[in-house]
């Protein structure tokens, strides 16, 4: 009962926070009208940065997307981060890493950020993607991928330990999941890192076999003298995973409707709460039902929302004194295109709490 009341209360307050007349919200609402509009919008946004500045129409659209829409989702550079005064987890946007040189550049970007003492108060908190550390990262190249990433992840952790920076390993495409988890578990169990608590990994609740991951992570956690963090997310690659599986004639790895994902999310929360002496949980969700459910177990849980889109939720959680951190992508629009496109997809699909927030319909 208490649960339901909190959920309803949160939703009411969040709704009040949504900026009714902001340009991004209006644009998203336009795109959300039907599948055709949404595809048109996506295509336009995708190609816009590459179009030459010919004609007033293109110029205006570019200005609209780059100057008004993108900043709603992405922080342009590290300097702008300093204007933010709430806890963040920084995600470095970038091009796909296609060469050794680009992998090295990414590694140095992570290391530099961790080592740099400047700016914000509090510990540095970054989300890293293993695929950005090696150009041929993948299960077809299993052993070499493991070797290279363990080496580079270790360097990052070593540097992080010196300044107590928090490193979370992002979840990526399903095909990479086993590889990412294996590398993570083996590295954080090494004597050099087994006591370091400021390390974590993301787990996607939209995967049908997400409990396999949960069990694997728990097994590793039990062997470790200090706990690590699991950032529980719903999952960001739904359309891609479905299409990819169908093309390969493999079983589709994700739940087919949002309700199943939301329920699985709660089940996983229960699982991690049962095992809280080994793993710390950080639920990342915008849905007040999921937030209320988790909050009920433990008042100390730190939630997580996305930058921009999650701002109404962040404000409300802050007011309610519920700990919350903001996943903040940093980079220019061109590098952030796929991130951007996925957010548009998620928020213009017919399901999802944020879509409900944006659309005119009331609950």
């Amino acid at each position, binding site marked *: 009962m208490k649960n339901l009341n909190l959920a309803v209360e949160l939703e009411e307050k969040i709704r009040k926070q949504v900026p009714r007349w902001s340009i991004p919200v209006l644009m998203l609402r336009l795109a959300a009208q039907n599948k055709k509009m949404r595809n048109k919008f996506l295509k336009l946004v995708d190609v816009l940065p590459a*179009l030459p500045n010919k004609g007033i129409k293109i110029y205006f659209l570019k200005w609209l997307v780059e100057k008004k829409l993108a900043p709603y989702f992405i922080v342009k550079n590290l300097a702008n981060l300093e204007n933010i005064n709430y806890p963040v987890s920084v995600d470095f946007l970038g091009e796909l890493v296609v060469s050794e040189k680009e992998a090295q550049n990414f590694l140095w970007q992570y290391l530099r950020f961790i080592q740099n003492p400047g700016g914000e108060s509090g510990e540095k908190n970054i989300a890293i993607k293993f695929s950005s550390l090696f150009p041929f990262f993948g*299960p077809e190249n299993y052993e070499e991928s493991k070797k290279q990433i363990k080496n580079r992840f270790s360097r990052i952790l070593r540097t992080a330990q010196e300044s107590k920076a928090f490193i979370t390993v992002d979840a990526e495409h399903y095909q990479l*999941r086993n590889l990412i988890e294996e590398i993570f578990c083996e590295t954080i169990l090494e004597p050099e890192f087994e006591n370091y608590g400021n390390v974590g990994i993301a787990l996607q609740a939209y995967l049908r076999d997400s409990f396999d991951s949960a069990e694997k992570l728990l097994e590793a956690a039990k062997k470790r003298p200090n706990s690590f963090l699991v950032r529980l997310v719903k999952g960001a690659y739904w359309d891609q995973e479905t299409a990819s599986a169908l093309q390969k004639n*493999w079983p589709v790895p994700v739940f087919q409707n949002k309700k199943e994902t939301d329920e699985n999310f709660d089940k996983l929360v229960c699982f991690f709460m049962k095992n809280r002496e080994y793993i710390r949980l950080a639920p990342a969700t915008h849905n007040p039902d999921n937030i209320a459910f988790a909050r009920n177990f433990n008042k100390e849980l730190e939630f997580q929302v996305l930058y921009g889109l999650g701002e109404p939720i962040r404000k409300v959680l802050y007011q309610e004194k519920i700990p919350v951190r903001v996943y903040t992508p940093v980079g220019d629009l061109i590098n952030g295109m796929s991130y951007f496109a996925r957010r548009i997809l998620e928020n213009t699909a017919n399901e999802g709490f944020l879509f409900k927030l944006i659309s005119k319909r009331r609950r």
Partner: protein
Amino acid sequence: MAKIIEIPEFQNEPLLDFSKPETREKIQKHLKSVRDVVLGIEIPLLISGIPVFTERKTRRENPSDIKETVGYICLAGQKEADLALKVLISDNQVKEWMKLSFEKRSSYLKKAAQLLRQKRYFFIALMAIETGKSFVESDAEICEAIDFLEYYSNSTLFLAKLNQETLISLPGEKNESFYIPIGKRAIGVSIQPWNFPLAISIGPLAAGLITGHAMIYKPAEQSSVIGYYLAKIFYNAGIPKEIFHFLPGYGEETGDYLVNHPAIKVIAFTGSKEVKRKIQNAVWKFNLRIIDSLPMEERYEKRIAVLESGGKGAIIVDSTADLDEAVVGVCDSAFSFQGQKCSACARIIIVGKTYEKFIQRLKERMESLPIGSPEDPKNQIGPLINKDAYDKVLSYMPLVEQEGKILAYGIVPQELKDKGYFVPPILVGDLSPDSRIAQEEIFGPLLAVFKANTFEEAIALVNHTEYGLTNGVFSRNPENIEKAKRELQAGNIYINRKITGAIVGRQPFGGMKMSGNSAKAGGWDYLLNFFDRKNICENTIRRGTPIE
């Protein structure tokens, strides 16, 4: 009232999941067992399923490790070919096979598919060792081979139905149409290459068999061990042994003899432009002169059912391209299997100001590609198939200096230089569109890059080749994409993805111009190339009454 015919459902064979440890372990296990059991022995001919050894043999080496012998391949000469032909000309099974229903013949193909599924890991291991192909590529090829077997089974039944149902039928007149194999005794030969030793061999064989022909299979000498086990699969699927013969040997010798032989009515060939011309010449000569000396009943003209003779694929990258996708797509298309694919990308045309950035990123990726044996999955570039290929690619190096400029190249590790036929990936620029490097099919990891000022100019550059197999475009400009779809002269065009890896039933594969006769492998109508057709009209009116 309109008739409705059902199009049979088809699902492609799923690839292996390399993220599962069992997959990787099984491959390692089979590499070992193939070495222990299969390597180093003599590979016989199979005539009516019976092994026949010849004195003349050729040694097949592992291209990643020349000292290792994969097998000693017996070579079929005229004498051995005659043994097979004698069976084909006289044995009753050849005629019986022609009379079987499509359903019955397709059951053998499906059985072969099942056997191939069971031998998946075996072939992955063998292909790595005999042809230097990576596990991922080999797996994709095995799926393609299984697909051919299943898909052509479905297609034949569908075609037969379509053929009959499209006839207009009226009372008193019974119209029938039958697809039949070619010849009084339907006999075909399939001469196939080493670069897709399983799939490109199985496709035409499956097509020839299911359409009712007895088939002789002449594999490339660089992949005859694989060919042998492939032949065994057909025999083990239960086809009558007399209708299928495995004759490895040199193309100039065995292939040539068979192509010219009067008993052979159907030819399926994939290979170089030069050999294609020899075959076309032989067929023409036969049909124009030699055929007149045959008995009347046997004057079926020789037919080249399927012909695939190379490509010089090009990819356009314009200023709206997603560079991440374009760099990786071009790299995959140009260097997977060391560029030894007819569908490979041999030329890139970059439009506008993206040139600098694209070349920079491509260069860096090329320099990052590890080179070595495919048995270690970390290697992205394996060896070339044999000494001839190695010499051929190297012979272009002086030309590179003359005609253009090297923009990027990988480095072959010192310890591999004499161990196998390894050459690094090379990017060449500043070429004239008419230079030899821009025009000739090199069949190696040599990539030429051109600049264009406009998209139209790029299209013209792409089409400025005698080949017409695969082309591609990386662009997000809908107008450019439409233009490309309409104007590119190629049988298989790809937008915003790599230009290799055509999948059965999804991208029927075959080219125009000098690349072939447009027979589409993996297309529903491929089998039509292997058929003659009988149309029969029967008057069913007796005493003024139609009797149906």
